[in-house]
């Protein structure tokens, strides 16, 4: 998008239309008390080279994954991004495209988004996928709202405490002001959601379980579905690691009603934790309840394939305050990136990458165990797992960042206070055996 400032002539012309004489006059409806009286306290301008230096100095205060070995996932994963992805997404046709309301000038974008939706439904085994949401957390909160809209007599959503802690906060933020309640379901000592706690609950509209869960464990989605069915509530499942579906049986196969997921693993850089890519998929039955954008394929007057935003009547620009959600904005460019990534790696590629993630994580767990860490749980996992580390590890971990450029796991205590000295480790396809051996050596 181009940045074109207003010239004095532009301003004069626009003021003439409004019938005002000056900018102060135009803004006179704003109460005086709210207006800034003094000039902004800004430093003097810099030359371009000084500014570049300044920005680089600021940037160097941060640690980015580049140049570091990352053994942390927890919702944002350090995967390889094929070279073709940044090349393709930075093409101006994609990078500057706005909401494709006008199909006559947006066929390329619309087709890309349609293919994105198709690939997401394939990946998750669901009937329909939207395009798209900010991140998994907001998509999951929208799923909670859908369940509450479908069951007007209920006012609660049951959410596993092994759903990503940030996502639970987002759900709570969405629900509380609307008069709804998020009921947190605890976990068993095996590190799985304690479904028995759901049985006793009344007035719930849905059950939300993350799999692989925050500890990395693969939840028993068939059992979750059974509980949801017996309670006549919607079964919502979420995930933070999209590549897991390269190996695991998908949520659709377990009868999930709604799936919310993070698509960051699909070719999108970590960029300080966002923007991510919120995936949201549902059954055909819930088609009209899904918030956000949907692209459909149809035939044009010449009988040729054409793409167009569809079911827009649910959306804010038509339905105003009765819209199914105020999420009108999509993450178009990130959705396009995910479509490009999935097309690049293909059906066999995703399986191979998923396999590599799992195998490396299994190896990492074994060398850490040999080095004296305690494997806390004995559950199938994808590429993340929890270890209890020796007491001195906290200190060691900081040293590893500073001296060895290595992020050695996520401290779980801030999220689960009872888990002192517990760390969540992740291995992606990018980590090497040498790096994993080095980490184990340092821990020992």
């Amino acid at each position: 998008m181009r940045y074109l400032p207003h010239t004095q002539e532009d301003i004069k012309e626009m003021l003439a239309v409004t019938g005002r004489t000056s900018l102060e006059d135009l803004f006179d409806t704003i109460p005086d008390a709210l207006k800034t009286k003094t000039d902004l306290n800004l430093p003097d301008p810099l030359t371009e080279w000084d500014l570049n230096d300044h920005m680089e100095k600021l940037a160097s205060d941060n640690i980015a994954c580049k140049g570091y070995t990352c053994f942390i996932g927890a919702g944002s994963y350090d995967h390889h991004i094929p070279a073709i992805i940044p090349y393709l997404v930075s093409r101006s046709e994609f990078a500057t495209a706005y909401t494709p309301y006008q199909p006559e000038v947006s066929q390329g974008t619309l087709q890309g988004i349609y293919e994105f939706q198709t690939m997401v439904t394939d990946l998750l085994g669901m009937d329909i996928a939207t395009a798209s949401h900010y991140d998994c957390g907001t998509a999951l909160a929208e799923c909670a709202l859908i369940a509450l809209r479908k069951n007007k007599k209920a006012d609660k959503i049951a959410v596993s405490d092994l759903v990503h802690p940030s996502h639970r906060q987002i759900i709570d933020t969405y629900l509380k002001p609307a008069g709804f309640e998020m009921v947190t379901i605890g976990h068993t000592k095996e590190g799985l959601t304690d479904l028995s706690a759901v049985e006793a609950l009344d007035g719930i509209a849905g059950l939300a379980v993350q799999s692989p869960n925050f500890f990395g464990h693969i939840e028993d989605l068939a059992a979750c579905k059974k509980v949801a069915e017996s309670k006549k509530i919607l079964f919502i499942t979420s995930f933070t690691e999209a590549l897991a579906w390269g190996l695991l049986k998908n949520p659709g196969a377990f009868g999930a009603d709604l799936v919310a997921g993070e698509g960051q693993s699909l070719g999108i850089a970590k960029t300080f934790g966002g923007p991510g890519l919120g995936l949201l998929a549902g059954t055909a039955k819930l088609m009209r309840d899904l918030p956000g954008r949907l692209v459909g394929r149809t035939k044009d007057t010449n009988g040729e394939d054409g793409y167009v935003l569809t079911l827009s009547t649910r959306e804010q620009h038509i339905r105003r305050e009765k819209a199914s959600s105020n999420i009108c904005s999509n993450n178009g460019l990130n959705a396009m990136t995910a479509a490009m990534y999935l097309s690049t790696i293909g059906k066999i590629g995703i399986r191979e990458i998923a396999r590599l993630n799992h195998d490396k994580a299994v190896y990492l767990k074994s060398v850490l165990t040999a080095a004296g860490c305690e494997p806390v749980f004995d559950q199938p996992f994808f590429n993340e797992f929890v270890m209890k580390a020796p007491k001195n590890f906290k200190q060691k971990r900081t040293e590893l960042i500073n001296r060895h450029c290595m992020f050695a796991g996520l401290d779980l205590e801030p999220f689960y206070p009872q888990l002192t000295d517990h760390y969540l480790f992740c291995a992606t396809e990018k980590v090497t055996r040498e790096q994993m051996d080095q980490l184990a050596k340092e821990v020992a």
Partner: protein
Amino acid sequence: MKEINDLNLPEDVKYTKDHEWAKSEEGIVTIGINDYAQDQLGEIVFVELPEVGDTFSAEDEFGSVESVKAVSELYMPISGEVAAVNENLEDAPELVNEDCYQGGWIIKVKPSDNAEMNALMDKAAYLEMLKG
């Protein structure tokens, strides 16, 4: 779109300000949207129905109709319990356009207060309202 005088507004049903119609027969009230509403909405592509057994008060929202142009809420002309829903609309929502008083009915209700029917408009009063 139709002129007001071309609208099909039967004498034997009652009307609401939200353009539903209601017809009482043997203790059951059949409800749908009238010719004006279906004409204004245009091609109807989906009707969201309540469940049999749901209870509503008069003027409660009980469902919605979606056309290619808009989604409109459906409001209860009277209070009562849903006794039947027109399941044909699931596959053939266009029935509401084609035959809004017969094949395109939406729900049947067991009324909780028979007197509420009397408060609804007859054809003349409804026409008066439309003409403003």
